[in-house]
């Protein structure tokens, strides 16, 4: 009897536990519903059935076939793809240097990476305009040095300027998981590989790269996700004729008051982002557990 009583005290009744669980789950769900899913549903509804009109795919088709959408999608994909590739290459090389080449200040370099992640994206763009802009430091030096009439460096206000800025801003997002992955590689593996006759490039290609591939893929997916949706850098640089999907949504909604087209483009952008996020999660779950290290 005493045992039964003790058991009853120790384990609360299932019904009460379920209700207590609901109390914890419902409030955040309500917040999400009000602040995220409801506005999102409005956007989707506006895209599928514009206000005052019935449900129709005609408008969607018109938007998707428009030159500006195709151009926006093209720029988005090219900028995101190029910036991600650049982040992967630069991030991998810088991480290799920080992790495997001992030099004074390596820990400080690691902290700097964290700091760059914490900075707002426009700040880097602002710094770029100070350095590479028409009246920036670099052009000023070159004009003075060579008595030029026009500033010779003008890549900043092009697609390449956007890509370079995004590489600078988002490379730390690749480096952070890479550095974590590098720290798990046994130094003995690299030493043994070297003792077996492998030169540094082979060690990188056959030992370090496979071991860090999950981190590289995860960092790359995250980078792709961020660059596809990047708005601040593109807007701040103001590159001529470089319109990405987020910029197009902004232009349609804020400048042209064409909310329906903006919603259609936004839905495409959301689908693209969710697809990339799904890819990111799939990579994380595939390589994150027992499969880590297997490629």
């Amino acid at each position: 009897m005493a045992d039964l009583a003790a058991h009853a005290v120790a384990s609360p009744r299932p019904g009460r536990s379920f209700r207590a669980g609901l109390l914890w789950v419902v409030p955040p769900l309500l917040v999400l519903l009000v602040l995220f899913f409801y506005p999102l549903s409005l956007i989707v509804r506006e895209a599928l059935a514009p206000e005052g009109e019935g449900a129709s795919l005609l408008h969607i088709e018109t938007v998707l076939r428009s030159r500006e959408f195709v151009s926006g999608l093209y720029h988005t994909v090219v900028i995101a793809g190029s910036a991600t590739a650049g982040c992967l290459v630069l991030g991998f090389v810088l991480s290799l240097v920080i992790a495997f080449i001992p030099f004074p200040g390596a820990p400080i370099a690691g902290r700097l990476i964290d700091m760059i992640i914490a900075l707002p994206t426009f700040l880097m763009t602002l710094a770029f305009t100070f350095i590479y802009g028409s009246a920036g430091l670099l052009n000023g030096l070159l004009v003075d040095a060579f008595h030029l009439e026009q500033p010779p460096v003008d890549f900043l206000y092009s697609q390449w300027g956007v890509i370079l800025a995004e590489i600078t801003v988002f490379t730390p997002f690749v480096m952070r998981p890479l550095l974590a992955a590098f720290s798990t590689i046994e130094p003995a593996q690299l030493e043994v590989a070297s003792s077996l006759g492998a030169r540094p490039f082979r060690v990188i290609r056959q030992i370090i790269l496979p071991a860090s591939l999950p981190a590289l893929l995860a960092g790359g997916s995250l980078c792709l996700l961020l660059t596809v949706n990047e708005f601040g850098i593109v807007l701040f640089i103001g590159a001529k004729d470089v319109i990405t999907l987020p910029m197009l949504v902004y232009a349609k909604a804020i400048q042209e008051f064409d909310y329906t087209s903006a919603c259609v483009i936004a839905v495409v952008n959301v689908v693209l982002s969710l697809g990339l996020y799904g890819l990111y999660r799939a990579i994380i779950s595939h390589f994150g557990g027992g499969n880590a290290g297997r490629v």
Partner: protein
Amino acid sequence: MVDITAQEIERCAPLDGVRTASRTSGSRIGFEDVSVAYGGLTVLKSLTLTVHPGEIVALIGPSGSGKTTALRVVAGFVRPSSGRIMIGDRDVTDLAPYDRQIGMVVQNYALFPHMRVEDNVAFGLQAQGAPRDVIRQRVPECLAMVGMSAYGKRYPRELSGGQQQRVAIARALAPKPQVLLLDEPLSALDTQIRRAMIDEIAKLHHDLPDLTVLYVTHDQTEALTLANHIGIMRDGEMQAFGEAQALFRHPPTRFAAEFLGRANLLSVGGLTAAGPGEARVRFGGAELLARNPHNLPEGRDCLLCVRPHHMRFAGEGAVANALTGVVQSVQWQGDVHNITLTAEGESLRMTCVPMAVPPALGDQLRVCFDPSEVTLVPEDAPRG
């Protein structure tokens, strides 16, 4: 240059100068006055040592003694602050590790986790540009050599520790290295597997008699079982070097006696010569006869080194080298009995076969040892 000869006592080398062992052809490992310093700290001090072709030399010593540093200098992962490293007739001091043609096995195996066993073994051959047909032939050979033929398609994570270490050895041997460096290769294994692996490494060396091996360990059993010669290191210096059995039987220093096997070290005095290589000493009221391989001078106080397993029970009659002691502890360890006695105020440990009726605590025991099995060791160990 002091050469190690067949004379047992001479094989138990002096503590300074060159340590070397006798062989004549093939690849050797040579340390020529090698020092390593990190900042102001010297972790390896003027090491001169030659490992001759086909020989296994074990470096043993406590943590921080410099034994692993010595091995890493040969591998090329640590650059000496002075001195030269020779492999064969090549001065490899300034060569990168990948140009040294060495094989290396480390404590934690360091197999490449994303590669199958056969790819791990093939790695060195590929890195050195071996043709594909050579790789196809050599990989199964090496796996067979370590008894892992059936595991070629597996990943390292699918193997036990002992199996992983066998693969690591096969991987190191596949490119037919000039020398093999083993850095505490069995330390991560449990006792039973470690014993089996010691036998396997011994067999492997029997099958590959030309392979020169530098074996770093803190385990005296591994060193005594496998090595032709043993170097005992301490504080970055070689304390003693010699042929394994000679070093064990006639340790040149207290540290060597205590580190290589268990030893009773009794403070004795009144040394007098008693024939070639022998001397008499006084231990309390007893007069003892012992080997004097290090030619300690008459009248000198020194230590008498008696291994616990060399002590036996003495009968009632007159026996040489007999001592009477009082039993302090008796421990049964399955295959042996360990007994601790106090004699003349010093503690003595003896090991004997298990007894049906062991002595009780406080019993008086008369024990003795053969003069040829006990050695006089200088009290103040000279430092190399």
